[in-house]
């Protein structure tokens, strides 16, 4: 059963076709990889799904409900979290505050209330501990190392208990030890029921982690299936090698 369905999605930037009639689905409980050469439209697909840029055509359906046209905060509220290509955190907030920003509260009274802080802080600290960064809970985000920022970004996005998380290059710019830790965290969260769609250039990481891989080239889906089949697909090899 699909958690996310993208149907005939299209986006142009002036004369450049970034996403061209793109259709793909993400199964509930899966870790799906979205790969393709540079400029193939992967991040644009993320931005279209999460409402950061308006689509020209097509539809995005999440849990059998169209989310096309909704603003990013509402899409997040429905259960789709995302991270960015370069880890983005709030540099002048502490690590703990970074964790509390995504917590959702309904109504102005709750937004101005202090009552729920301790419960939310406990959950945030648990999450930081599970990511092994609880020791920097009181440190400003701007003072964290890049690896800590990557882990913090992943931990923070989980605070609102999203059902689907879009990870944009989770392995980008991190050392092999941290890479393994990030993969473990993704597997653990996936085992708890979180579905992942990830964009990644590190093929080893994708092949080890993903159940399903979708390949984009020039904004179109050129192949999809299990990682082994996709790797052997001639169209994929052509796209990557430019043959």
């Amino acid at each position, binding site marked *: 059963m699909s958690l996310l369905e993208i149907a005939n999605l299209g986006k142009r930037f002036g004369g450049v076709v970034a996403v061209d009639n793109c259709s793909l689905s993400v199964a509930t409980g899966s870790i799906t990889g979205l790969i393709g050469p540079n400029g193939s439209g992967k991040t644009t697909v993320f931005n279209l799904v*999460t409402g*950061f840029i308006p689509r020209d055509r097509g539809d995005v359906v999440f849990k059998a409900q169209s989310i096309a046209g909704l*603003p*990013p*905060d509402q899409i*997040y*509220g429905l259960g789709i*979290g*995302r991270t*960015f290509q370069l880890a*983005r*955190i*709030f*540099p*002048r*907030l*502490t690590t*703990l*505050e970074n964790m*509390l*920003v*995504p*917590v*959702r*509260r309904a109504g*102005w009274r*709750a*937004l*101005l*209330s*202090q009552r729920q*802080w301790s419960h939310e*802080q406990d959950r945030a*600290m648990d999450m930081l501990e599970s990511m092994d960064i609880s020791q920097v*809970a*009181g*440190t*400003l*985000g*701007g*003072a964290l190392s890049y690896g800590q920022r990557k882990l913090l970004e992943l931990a*923070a*996005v989980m605070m*609102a208990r999203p059902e689907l998380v879009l990870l944009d290059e989770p392995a980008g710019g991190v050392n092999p030890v941290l890479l393994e830790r990030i993969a473990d965290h993704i597997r653990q969260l996936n085992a708890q029921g979180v579905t992942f769609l990830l964009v990644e250039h590190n093929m080893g990481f994708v092949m080890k982690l993903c159940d399903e891989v979708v390949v984009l080239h020039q904004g179109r889906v050129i192949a999809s299936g299990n990682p082994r089949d996709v790797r052997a697909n001639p169209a994929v090899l052509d796209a990557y090698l430019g043959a």
Partner: protein
Amino acid sequence: MNTVLRLPALKPAGLGLALAAALAVPLISDPGTASMAVFITMYVGLATAWNIMGGYTGYISLGHAAFFGFGAYTLGLFLVHLGIPAGYQPFLLVPVAGVLTALLAALIGWIALRTRAATFVIVTIAFMFMLQLLAENLVNLTGGGAGLGLPVPSWGGDFFAIPFYYAMLALAILGVTVSWVIRRSKFGLGLLAIRDDEDKALAVGVPTRAFKLAAFVISAALVGMIGGVYGYFITYIYPQFVVDPLIGISMVLMVFFGGLGTLSGPVLGAIVLEWSQLQFAYHFGASRLYLIFYAAVFLLVIRFLPQGVVPSIADLVARRRHGRAAGPPGPASDSAEPPTRIRPGLASP
């Protein structure tokens, strides 16, 4: 350990002392000083209100004088056109001026907050000048360039400033309280997130447009109420003096001086800079020499205290504590905490 234990008790005691001193100002001072105190408390309120928008969200509005002037005209027009007599009654209309200013801010904010950064600054300035032009040209309503005369209270010279001082003080306390509540809330955390990275905030579910608009409206409503009291205090209002860019710039400078986005910074900035400005006025008459002083302060703050006085002092104290906790200087360690470490809660200097 003892210092940590004493701090929670010291804070309310210090606040209580400051409040008692503020309440006692008119009782222990001459009319001239009471009049100065009106202006200082006015700017405490204005800077604090501006900080709710500019400091917490990072959206620098240079057009807040529009709300100040609108509040002044709203109260003035009510008094003149409804025939409300001078005395204490006009103070009851101050919240009405606040509500109407909030409505205007909602309209302006709805448009202006579609822009960011420098564009937002320019749009707010443009709105301010539009309002000034309206006040000058709607002669039948506002009196235009000839000004609008408000009823003058019959209080004696020695007493005249005192009710205005307490009204300004009440509004300043209201502003600081509102700012404090926001700073500690989830809403405030959302505003600080917007200041740091608006797109990221949007990605993690912060309804940025609603939050920014709410902060803008709250900020403007407070400024409008203060403008209302100011208009009644000076009893004759002109477009160029109440919708005055210098009033808007002063708020901004005071916040930058004290510490952008902090609770106590705007209060400190307003007290220091407005007191200095009044001293200039006292010693050099109505000349605008104080503008040179303002420019010099602005340059010095940017050069030496880019974060403002309060965060710079907090940083210095944190560095000293960190240095003391770490013992004598030794080789740099990877595990050493940076001086930017804050208690594991909400960072609110």
